[in-house]
């Protein structure tokens, strides 16, 4: 009896610790090492089409970048992959974090560059909201 209670207590404690260790990303600002992109580099705070971005600087340039709408709700996870790396047979992007949960659909498109990721790159956008809800990060 005591043994089963101890095992259950350890299990509950492990789950609690695990939950505490996982970053909260559903609402801005995300926990953990994420920083607001507009405070890391000189970019508008809210980017039309993407939203308000957060990134762990150690993961640059690939990300993940977490994108939030005007209400601070997570709408997408974005990876920024330099074209020169994508065409380099010796370069790989492995095990990129994907903390945003369920993905509704994915967009991939070219970007000419911006502060933080200056070289031309691809945006890989994992949308966590339906297509119709992309308007939540449209330009004002």
């Amino acid at each position, binding site marked *: 009896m005591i043994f089963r209670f101890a095992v259950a207590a350890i299990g509950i404690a492990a789950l609690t610790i695990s939950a505490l260790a996982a970053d909260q990303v559903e609402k801005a600002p995300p926990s953990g090492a994420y920083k607001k992109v507009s405070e890391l*580099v*000189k*970019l*508008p705070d809210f*980017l*039309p*089409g*993407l939203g308000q971005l957060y990134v762990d600087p150690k993961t640059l340039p690939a990300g993940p970048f977490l994108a939030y709408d005007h209400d601070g709700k997570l709408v997408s996870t974005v990876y920024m992959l330099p074209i020169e790396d994508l065409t380099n047979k010796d370069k790989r992007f492995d095990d990129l974090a994907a903390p945003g949960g369920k993905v509704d659909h994915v967009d991939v*498109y*070219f*970007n*000419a*560059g*911006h*502060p933080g990721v*200056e*070289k*031309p790159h691809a*945006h890989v956008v994992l949308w966590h909201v339906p297509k119709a809800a992309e308007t939540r990060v449209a*330009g004002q």
Partner: protein
Amino acid sequence: MPSRRHVLLAGGGLLAGLAWPRLPLAGSPAEIRMQGKADGSHVWFDPIGLHVEPGQIIRWINLDPGNSHTATAYHPKNADHPLRIPDGAEPWNSDYLLPNETFSVMLTVEGVYDFFCIPHEHAGMVGRIVVGRPGSPPKESAHQTIPDIALQAFPSIDEIMQRGAVRRT
């Protein structure tokens, strides 16, 4: 409401505040717009080529709502870039301009001035201004570290002189 960042006197070697009252101001500044597609897939200066007279003020304005841009002269003082402005002209660097911010310079030394956008040089976002008579074109050298896409984007001096302003959007 645009915010004005700086006014520099490039080429005259004088403080703008001292020189300002004596300069021939031919109407409003010549404007170069920093623009980009909504998804950031294409960025450009508009016009990309411009002919002005000595003493004219050039004003860059960032009209791209989703990006930051710079107007930066090709000069060794700017991150060791090659010299592509006239001898004796002062280089400039606007630093990053957020949407609707502006930056101005006054160009007094005649010749050809090439400039670029720091985060978008590799995307070919460059421009060329001819002040007065063009004189010698910027020197090309195998040692220059300008991306090919940028080198190919400069409008020719002849086209600028013929048209006054060259637009490629």
